[in-house]
């Protein structure tokens, strides 16, 4: 009973915080406390939901979100497969650890010229998102695969199971919680990758809207594009948090 009271209190306080933030946004905008480049929230919302702009935003969203989704799926696949590979062939691990670390430390903008040469400009966002997601999933999965206990491993060994059976029946279920946490933290990383990619010369998407609105002083458009990208990331992050809670309840 007391715990639920505490939980209730934290939910109420969190909601108060979000409301305060949104009203602060509105008040600063209405009174022009931060100048003309800070529009009130209401202006941004009216601008965003204006029927005449639906087509513009829907097109940009379709372009960006497909890059986010493709990069997220591809990065997850490569990250999990690579982690599985170094788990089965441990000799490869130090080299791939370093490679993943270097890829992570290289700022995406430094890879942009390479992507522009190698890929279609429209796919740069997907490529950066893939790299970002790959790193998160590789680290999460390798650390998760180390979770199965030595006793369990010995048991599988004694019963004569093949390495593949052990991977699928023991190590993978034990790694699932860490992997789902990785999937959660990879969401903003995928969005950042896709938006960055669009800044390096894509001809469509939310990132392009942001840059052209910034350069042409279209303030409500700029804020709307940022708002849409942030809201989408937040929603996906929330969905993955729910999945995470379920998986932790089942496997951890």
């Amino acid at each position, binding site marked *: 009973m007391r715990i639920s009271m505490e939980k209730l*209190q*934290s939910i*109420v*306080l*969190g909601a*108060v*915080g*979000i409301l*305060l*933030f949104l009203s602060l946004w509105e008040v600063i905008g209405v009174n022009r406390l*931060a*100048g003309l*480049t*800070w529009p009130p929230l209401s202006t941004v919302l009216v601008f965003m939901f204006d029927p005449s702009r639906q087509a513009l935003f829907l097109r940009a969203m379709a372009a960006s979100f497909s890059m986010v989704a493709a990069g997220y799926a591809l990065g997850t696949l490569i990250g999990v497969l690579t982690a599985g590979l170094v788990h089965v062939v441990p*000799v490869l691990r*130090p*080299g*791939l*650890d*370093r*490679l*993943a*670390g*270097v890829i*992570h*430390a*290289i*700022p*995406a*903008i*430094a*890879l*942009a*010229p*390479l992507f*522009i*040469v190698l890929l279609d400009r429209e796919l740069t966002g997907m490529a950066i998102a893939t790299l970002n997601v790959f790193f998160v999933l590789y680290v999460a999965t390798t650390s998760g695969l180390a979770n199965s206990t030595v006793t369990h491993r010995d048991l599988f060994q004694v019963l004569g199971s093949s390495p593949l059976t052990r991977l699928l029946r023991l190590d993978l279920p034990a790694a699932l919680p860490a992997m789902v946490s990785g999937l959660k933290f990879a*969401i*903003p990383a995928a*969005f*950042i990758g896709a*938006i*960055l990619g669009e*800044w390096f010369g894509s001809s469509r998407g*939310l*990132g392009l809207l*942001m*840059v052209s*609105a*910034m350069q042409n*002083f279209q*303030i409500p458009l*700029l*804020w709307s594009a*940022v708002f849409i*990208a*942030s809201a989408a*990331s*937040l929603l996906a*992050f929330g969905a993955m948090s729910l999945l995470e809670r379920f998986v932790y309840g089942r496997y951890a």
Partner: protein
Amino acid sequence: MSTSAKRSFGSTLRIGLSRYWGVLAVLLAWQAWVSISGVNAIVMPQPINVLTDLVTNPMVYITNGGQTLILAALGLVLGMFLGTIVAVLAWTSRLLNGILVPLGLIFSSVPVVALIPVLARLLGYDLKTVLAIVVIISFFPAFVFTSAGLKALPPGSDDLFKVLGASRLTRFFHLVLPSAVPNWMIALRLAAPPSVLSAMVAEFLMGSSGLGYLFRSAASDFQTERAFGTSVVATVISVLCFTAALGAERRVNNRWK
């Protein structure tokens, strides 16, 4: 003597190879791809030409790279400092904590890099804006991880301090703040690569100066050697920042535990 030296050289080589074969393989694949496909030098420079540009025009790279490094490092330190201050403030009051922590979590689950155009428009196109952008982007991990660390006290320690009648201030400086240090170092490591990235992206978008601007002007003039040289310098700076943060984290954790 000479055999042991030879052996140690051999084992160093083996360790180096086992750690860096992945990086080496990527570099070799790049060189091989350029040589075999024979793409135009304007499209894809050979690594050796990039190196030549780096060596023959050091001042361009040093001034712009230095600027980016200083902005990124200063912004990282200031952002960490601000994040820590706000986390400590939130720790002092349950109300403030309940209000600020969810907001911090929301901001760390959105693509903060997307805020750069908004901030650039708000603050104006200049160097102070680049710094402010790095500060804001480093602020969120510092705040989230420090406030989590301030609450992760060793089990039972809090009761001990209470039983011994420690004042709130003593408890803060001798128990709460030290227990937040490992988390604080994680935040530093996590925030280091994004600080270099956000400084460069801000310079790129605003077209002011620094590595981001150098990259932008090189790319639009089709100076591909310069563009790739910028990438090399940016990578070195970023890897240095990350390695320094990682080293600091290891050192602090060793002393702390």
